[in-house]
């Protein structure tokens, strides 16, 4: 029986089902591509059709874009400064409770942002667990740009820390140790050896986190509120405009779409380059 496997009808059947399976997979891929591009095309078509371009230069749109750029930049600065060492510890040090910390860090990813907003409000709001003490010192976070940054850090941090930790974990310890033998200090070794080797992962993680911070909506509107130029980032401005002027909401959506597209292209480019370097 086994000698004649090639002519076995069941093998032929299996080969047939393979073709069918790959055909189906291609069809699903096409379906997915169409499903994702259709809404994007609709946005652009509407913008062109109704001349909604002009709304992109409206004060609301400009303020929202500037605020989004400002808050996401602050978020990223804090994330890179604090998240990078945190990710390194997470990747390299096996301490007691590291698994708990690992799980904890992923929670904001699965938590709906609106729930995160409520949680932040109850922590840092004026009567919140921490906020009531801040309030004693005259610090109120609600309705400030700082609240927007806090919300963005909360939802975006896991994306950076997770990818950075994976990147650090993939760096060969032998290379690091060789640098130590060559007389490099801890700092020098970290910045000259470890970071460059993990750079593709750090950059990719940073860009994902940035995109996530840029899209942050639920936590911001609940925790920070919505006010032009102070807490109204692009996603919040889209909702506010949707309530009064659909064209303006569409224009803002196209604006943020262009931005997201640029981020994805950058990630693609960097990933392609880093894999090219390794080969």
């Amino acid at each position, binding site marked *: 029986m086994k000698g004649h496997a090639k002519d076995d009808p069941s093998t032929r059947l299996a080969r047939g089902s393979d073709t069918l*399976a790959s055909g189906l997979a291609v069809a699903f891929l096409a379906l997915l591509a169409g499903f994702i591009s259709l809404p994007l095309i609709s946005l652009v078509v509407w913008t062109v059709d109704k001349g909604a371009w002009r709304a992109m230069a409206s004060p609301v749109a400009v303020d929202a874009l500037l605020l989004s750029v400002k808050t996401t930049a602050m978020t990223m600065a804090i994330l890179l400064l604090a998240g990078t060492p945190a990710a390194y510890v997470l990747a390299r040090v096996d301490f007691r409770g590291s698994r708990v910390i690992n799980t904890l860090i992923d929670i904001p990813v699965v938590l709906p942002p609106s729930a995160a907003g409520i949680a932040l409000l109850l922590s840092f709001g004026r009567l919140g667990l921490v906020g009531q003490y801040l309030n004693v010192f005259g610090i109120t976070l609600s309705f400030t740009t700082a609240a927007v940054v806090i919300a963005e850090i909360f939802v975006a941090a896991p994306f950076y820390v997770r990818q950075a930790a994976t990147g650090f974990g993939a760096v060969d310890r032998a290379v690091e140790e060789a640098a130590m033998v060559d007389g490099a200090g801890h700092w020098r070794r970290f910045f000259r050896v470890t970071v460059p080797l993990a750079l593709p992962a750090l950059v990719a993680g940073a860009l994902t986190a940035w995109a996530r911070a840029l899209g942050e909506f639920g936590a911001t509107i609940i925790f920070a509120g*919505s006010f032009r130029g102070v807490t109204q980032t692009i996603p919040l401005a889209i909702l506010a405009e949707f*309530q009064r002027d659909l064209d303006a909401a569409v224009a803002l959506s196209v604006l943020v779409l262009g931005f997201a597209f640029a981020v994805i292209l950058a990630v693609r480019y960097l990933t392609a380059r880093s894999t090219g370097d390794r080969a």
Partner: protein
Amino acid sequence: MSAEGEGISGHRRVRLYLFAAMLVSGVTLAGIVGCGGVSGREAGDGGRPQGGTLTVLAASSLIDAFGVLANRFEEQNPGVKVRQSFESSSTLLAQIQQGAPADVFASAAEEEMNTAVEDGLVKGEPEVFVKNREIVMVPKNNPANIRRFEDVAKPDVKLVLAGKDVPAADYALQILGEAKGEYGAGFEKEVLSNVVSRESDVRASVNRVVVGDADATFGYASDYTPDIRDKVKVVQIPPDFNIVATYPIAALKDAKSPGLAKKWVEMVTSEEGQRVLQKWNFESAA
């Protein structure tokens, strides 16, 4: 991230992934088809007197009163399900303009309803069913010490308003415009400079006061609901320049359940409906 184990029965793994992907797609598709099927059935039932689903889009200030009315409606019409969505009237109008499936629209202002009528979205004449008075609400501990209406103009009051074009906020602005005569030309500007957030609807702005982050907000008398009375205090707006909102209701032209829509409007305007609405601080329209 890692590409380990590529050689290990790669083909088999690919097939496993493929299978998983197809399973997920299949389940998703089934889910989508299932959801579509439900709405299709609703459409079919609409014509019959028994059963069916009534979809009501109502201004967010109506959430409590309409919740009670929905229960009664379902009791009185066995088999009928009432689905309600509460947003600011301007959001609801935008949704209706975009073709959201709905049977009844209850607006917190004439303006949104008029637009709906002009756009040919409404069936028949809208009916004003209640009135609602604007009030100022402050947290119980009143951190900004707002005792009278004019105190909202004091410096450093954290004032929250509903968003632009949300009726409750529009009325607040009208009131401030009117109050200039009483408190001087700078009054309106001083109050507006105290605004720290524009919320998506009036209930969201009231909740800012409930959690104690805002010092004051403008809302409707009906927003001072029993469940927030231990956290919030009311500061009355002088009747000389207060504005009384009128709420129109109408069945929609594209209603899937036109019979139920008519019944709902009748119930809301009936004596029984008015009694429920009065319980939530609405004033009868009659």
